[in-house]
């Protein structure tokens, strides 16, 4: 399974990704969907991908094969695509539109995507793991290609001519010989023509793309620059109440006494207490705030680990390893063949996603049916959470995801949705709940912290002989070494995290790449080799070599002349089917030891490029986000309290932190497209760390890096 997963370009799921798997109910949604849409052509793509069924065991249990996506062509010619993926800023609404436009031969403007609506879109595990481009885009291509064939056949019948004498351009089918045309919506005569097709139907190869492969601007751009797009916090149905939740003073606190007499006395206020959950709903924000402040509550407190003792705690509480990503040879044999041996430990802090749109939900009950609008990356998982929380069947719950103000892996759960729905059930009115920034920091979840121990051996000529890598708590993504070494073991030890942790852009690949690449630099120095030459000597993977060489070339690595207070660094890595290398130059002022990033060059390759400008935007954004985790971001905590949980106390990258960034894209039209929202972040930290070492002479083995 592991090999098959890798071959299919899938990630190995982190344990926290799938801790609460969604269940069942694909077939109901199929029937409901077919009832909901109007006449026209309806094409569904069956999910038969073996690896996909493997990581979604419920797919294998389903009695009929599930649909991955629908495409509907209405009688007015409108093209609507239904996909369970969601838009959180990665701009898949645009790139998926391009895929459909390419196959269907209609203009992108004529295509509408319905995304992340659990009543209308087929089940989808969620928008994470860079899977939209490699998995959803080909499905939509197949649906669109099949729809085009159906349209041409229908038109051929309609006109009494051969299908191959017809052309489909911009939504009209023409027969050049007789000068007749017909619109694509006019062919079904009020019927619903439904077709399901296999996932392996052929699609247009990248060399012949016409819309994909170009920089189509963001399809929702105008609604955003005019402020018209409504994110979840902007929804305001008539009669809506504002919800607020009473938060404990610390994690793991229990409500020991509760008196809501004063809040109850306020006009229009609804108070809910249900176990450790307590909250209010009121007609407006100010009343809700007053009511919340009027709740008298006491909470139990407990001693909990702080950030100062975190890494000892994680090692002490580690569980036995889960598998071995490399698993070859014997470390002792490898070490005995080495001229130089090295051991080092690397640490990464918890960091926060800080999505600018905080978690929010609008919940509404109608009889026993619950509808929730919420910004989440996993609408179907949120539906499951809601159904379980209220003990109702999933088909009574509908989750809709307005295009969302970012996630970065931070919006996989339905906390705000469940809270808003609990308040709405008591109020019997729609309730909107928008978390404050402080709630975001305290009650969401973090990128896992971790400690990584590396033991290695190298021969004097620079050949790696042994590689032993233990990751405690941070995760298994990107743990596998791409370097050629005969004796190699890379294992992940789950541990007991004092803070709630979960997905983050690229998961643990950032931590693992940081430790691996920093250690590679230390080995290169030990044997007196240039870091680039040392990597290339131990690396046969051609795609990784290609980005490494491309980044070094654009950066001018070999030509760089040492300057006082300046240093350069290089790092490479692969994850989720993408290959990346980063070069960085850092300068440190002698007086105050402040580090300044002078420039960054990053080369990235993810197969055939779907939207060059969109891809550049993602790579640039990942680099900027990576600066924060590399240089400043770290959650401080003590006894279940976050000590720096405000934007004024937690430093995220700003304009003044922006170095000149050069992105080099390698477009491999001969290779399938991989996702790109995550992988470009993984090499930023080790390249900066190495550059910082060059500038200061002090090696930092922690994230965030310390300037020495």
């Amino acid at each position: 399974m592991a090999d098959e997963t890798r071959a299919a370009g899938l990630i190995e799921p982190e344990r926290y990704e799938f801790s609460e798997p969604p269940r069942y109910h694909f077939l109901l949604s199929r029937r409901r969907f077919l009832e909901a849409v109007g006449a026209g052509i309806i094409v569904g793509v069956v999910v038969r991908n073996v690896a996909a069924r493997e990581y979604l065991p419920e797919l294998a249990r389903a009695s009929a094969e599930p649909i991955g996506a629908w495409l509907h062509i209405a009688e007015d010619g409108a093209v609507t695509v239904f996909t369970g993926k969601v838009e959180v800023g990665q701009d898949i609404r645009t790139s998926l539109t391009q895929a459909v436009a390419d196959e269907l031969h209609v203009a992108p403007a004529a295509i509408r995507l319905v995304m992340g609506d659990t009543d209308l879109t087929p089940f989808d595990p969620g928008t994470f793991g860079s899977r939209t481009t490699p998995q959803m885009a080909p499905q939509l291509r197949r649906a669109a290609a099949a729809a085009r064939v159906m349209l041409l056949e229908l038109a051929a019948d309609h006109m009494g001519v051969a299908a191959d004498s017809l052309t489909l351009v911009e939504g009209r089918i023409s027969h050049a010989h007789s000068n007749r045309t017909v619109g694509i919506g006019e062919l079904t005569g009020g019927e619903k023509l439904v077709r399901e097709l296999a996932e392996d139907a052929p699609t247009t190869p990248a060399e012949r793309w016409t819309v994909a492969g170009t920089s189509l601007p963001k399809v929702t751009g105008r609604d955003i620059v005019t402020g018209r797009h409504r994110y979840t916090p902007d929804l305001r149905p008539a009669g809506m109440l504002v919800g607020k939740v009473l938060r404990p003073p610390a994690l793991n606190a229990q409500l020991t006494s509760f008196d809501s007499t004063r809040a109850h006395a306020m006009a229009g206020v609804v108070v809910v207490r249900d176990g450790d959950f307590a909250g209010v709903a009121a007609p407006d924000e100010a009343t809700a705030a007053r009511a919340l402040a009027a709740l008298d509550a006491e909470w139990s407190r407990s001693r909990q680990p702080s950030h100062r003792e975190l890494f000892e705690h994680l090692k002490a509480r580690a569980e036995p390893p889960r598998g071995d990503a490399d698993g070859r040879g014997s470390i002792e044999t490898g070490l005995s063949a080495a001229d130089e041996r090295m051991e080092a430990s690397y640490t990464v802090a918890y960091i926060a996603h800080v999505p600018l749109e905080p978690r929010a939900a609008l919940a509404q009950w109608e009889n026993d049916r619950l509808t929730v609008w919420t910004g989440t990356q996993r609408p179907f998982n949120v539906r499951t959470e809601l159904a379980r929380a209220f003990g109702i069947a999933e088909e009574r719950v509908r989750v809709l995801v307005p295009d969302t103000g970012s996630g970065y892996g931070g919006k996989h759960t339905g906390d705000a949705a469940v809270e808003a729905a609990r308040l709405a059930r008591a109020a019997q009115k729609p309730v909107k709940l928008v978390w404050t920034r402080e709630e975001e920091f305290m009650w969401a979840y973090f990128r896992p912290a971790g400690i990584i121990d590396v033991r290695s051996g190298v021969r004097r000529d620079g050949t790696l002989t042994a590689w032993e890598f233990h990751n405690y708590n941070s995760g298994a993504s990107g743990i596998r070494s791409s370097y050629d070494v005969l004796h190699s073991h890379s294992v992940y030890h789950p541990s007991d995290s004092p803070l709630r942790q979960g997905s983050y852009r690229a998961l643990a690949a950032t931590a693992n790449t940081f430790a691996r690449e920093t250690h590679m630099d230390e080995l290169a120095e030990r044997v007196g080799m240039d870091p680039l030459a040392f990597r290339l000597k131990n690396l046969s993977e051609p795609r990784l070599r290609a980005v490494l060489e491309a980044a070094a070339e654009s950066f001018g690595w070999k030509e760089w002349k040492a300057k006082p207070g300046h240093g350069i660094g290089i790092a490479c890595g692969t994850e989720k089917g993408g290959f990346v290398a980063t070069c960085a130059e850092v300068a440190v002022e002698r007086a105050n030891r402040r580090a300044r990033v002078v420039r960054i060059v990053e080369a990235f390759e993810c197969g055939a490029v779907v939207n060059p400008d969109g891809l550049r935007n993602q790579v640039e954004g990942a680099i900027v986000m990576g600066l924060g985790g590399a240089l400043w971001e770290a959650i401080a905590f003590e006894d279940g309290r976050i000590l720096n949980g405000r934007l004024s106390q937690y430093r995220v990258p700003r304009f003044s932190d922006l170095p000149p960034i050069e992105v080099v894209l390698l477009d491999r039209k001969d290779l399938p497209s991989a996702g790109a929202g995550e992988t470009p972040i993984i090499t930023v930290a080790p390249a900066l760390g190495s550059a910082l070492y060059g500038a200061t002479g002090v090696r930092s083995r922690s994230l965030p890096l310390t300037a020495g």
Partner: protein
Amino acid sequence: MADFLELHVNGERHRLDVDPGKSLLGVLREDLDLTGSKYGCGEGQCGACTVLLDGLPVRSCVTPVGSVGAAAVLTIEGLEQDGRLHPVQAAFLAEGALQCGYCTAGMIMSAAGLLRSEPDPDEAAIGRALEGNVCRCGAYARIIASVRRAARTHMEGSHG
């Protein structure tokens, strides 16, 4: 207590029965249904709530509505004129200067305010003026390019 408060927003006058201590952002979003200005942090640190007061950018989340007085409030909804985008809005589209878009309204308002006082800012000046606006998706370079592009169009004078 008919203590109405008069507020001038996007060229319109509103008489509002609100607590003068309520934030301008709260009034815009809750009382006027102008939801283009966003809540991001509530302490004036992220800039997502930026609007112009008599042409100057302010953080509406930390501005009590009672302090606005007769000043003209301009929000993202008031920037477009007769279906024509403000040069900064058009430039954001041309440069692809947004990903999730949640910071965009605040960025555009800060930039529009900058161009009123400094019609041709260089990259460093743009960065300084926008330092209080956070784009978590990291589109900073494109945002700077957008403001430069808007400055080049020399059309600011025609916009209110």
